[in-house]
């Protein structure tokens, strides 16, 4: 058996040579499919023995593939719903072609960690863009130049491109209305910090239950008070 990376978590068997290898990430090993290591999707953080890269694998764990394909489908649909990007554009943003994206969705191809991360970033970015720019979200995400577009930045591995999106929106005259900027002040220690520690597990949040009260607790009639007043005598107005 050849150890490929530490810590070992499971064994993968080479179907043709009958050799066993131990790999790093558990999710990568629980795949029920034939294919090369590229299709299985080794993590870039994982060191794979050179002769294992082109080896045909047989590994088990069908449920994980189904979960992954379901996640890819959910993320893809979220991107479409939020920003209206086409499948072609979504595929480009995660650095694959449209057929590979379909393969991820139907479970024929297992996405690499990098592709999956890019898709998650794209989904979050699409949602944020939709909140910020509404119907212009797609326009902002596509940018004006395919080479430097926000989608290309995500394909390159960027995880936060909000600054670039804001710049594009400002250039396009689509600045977000009522934007809020927040800055943390350096202060003395707030009083609640000590109290929160001292009260941990002892406090009791207020219940919603009210105390039944009579209507006159809320709507008071002051006519009796008014009746007790002696009206000051005023000089009568002389008619002219």
């Amino acid at each position, binding site marked *: 058996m050849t150890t490929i990376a530490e810590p070992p978590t499971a064994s993968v068997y080479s179907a043709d040579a009958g050799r066993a290898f131990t790999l790093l990430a558990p999710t990568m090993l629980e795949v029920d499919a034939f294919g090369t290591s590229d299709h299985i999707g080794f993590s870039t953080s994982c060191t794979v023995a050179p002769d294992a890269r082109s080896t045909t694998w047989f590994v088990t764990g069908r449920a994980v593939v189904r979960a992954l394909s379901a996640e890819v489908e959910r993320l893809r649909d979220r991107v479409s719903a939020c920003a209206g990007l086409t499948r072609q554009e979504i595929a480009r943003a995660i650095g694959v072609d449209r057929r590979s994206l379909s393969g991820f969705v139907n479970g024929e191809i297992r996405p690499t960690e990098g592709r999956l991360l890019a898709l998650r970033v794209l989904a979050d970015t699409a949602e944020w863009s939709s909140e910020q720019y509404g119907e212009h979200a797609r326009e902002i995400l596509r940018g004006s130049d395919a080479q430097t577009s926000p989608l290309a930045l995500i394909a390159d591995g960027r995880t936060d491109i909000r600054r670039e999106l804001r710049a594009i929106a400002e250039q396009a005259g689509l600045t977000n209305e009522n934007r809020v900027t927040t800055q943390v*002040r350096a202060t003395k220690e707030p009083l609640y910090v000590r109290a929160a520690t001292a009260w941990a597990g002892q406090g009791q949040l207020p219940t*919603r239950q009210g105390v039944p009260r009579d209507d006159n607790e809320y709507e008071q009639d002051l006519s009796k008070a008014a009746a007790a007043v*002696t009206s000051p005598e005023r000089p009568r107005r002389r008619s002219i």
Partner: protein
Amino acid sequence: MEAEECYQGADGPLNQGDILIAPVARVSSPDLFVPDRWDRLDQTEHAVDRSAQGESDLHVLSGRALVMVTSHDCHHDKEWNTERNRLIRSGLDPEEAARIAEENQTLDRTFQASPLVPLEDLDPGSRGNYRAGRVVGFYPLPSPSDGSFPESVVDLTYRCTIDRKAITERRWCLTPPARDQLRYAIARFDSFRTVELAESIEAAIGKSITDVRVDTSSALTLELVLDDDSVLRLVQPPTEPDPGGRSRL
């Protein structure tokens, strides 16, 4: 007042005098000026861009704080009572009506509160006056037995409306005598300012009362007219409403 006489454990619904942890916020000017005593409260600065409305920016300072509930118990369940009474009138029994009203999340959930400011953050030369409750707008508090906060004042000059769902912790509540003092401090700050009753009563010694009036604008104020035409204005303290069911339907 000593801590033992001042505090009791907080439980049940929200009460005036509860001490709890909740977020607070206040509106500021663009220079974001922070008075020294609010340094611990103003933890975050926010600028809201209102250019789309053709207006200047809004500036808000916010933070999480130890606060005291200043709104009255009656106010906290006003809409709950209105809804409960409406349901009872529609034919439900009181228990069922109360249960349905409690589940209604749209009823007023807000309360008013003022933050606690430690005495050490106030002018050293005036701490004695703050501690004695002589400074209008501040209600003094001793440090509680669990030492969860130092000797402080409730800063009634900073008041904000908070959703009860934003409360994260609650531990202490004022005892009834301490709560009376809080009400006096609130009334004094909000409306009466200087109360010179002691001096006025001294001046009335030897005179007779010739008339009694109740102020129409405030049922709390009673005027005693003396034989030399001078007037003694008395303020009747707000009473604790009796919790009791509806007496008529």
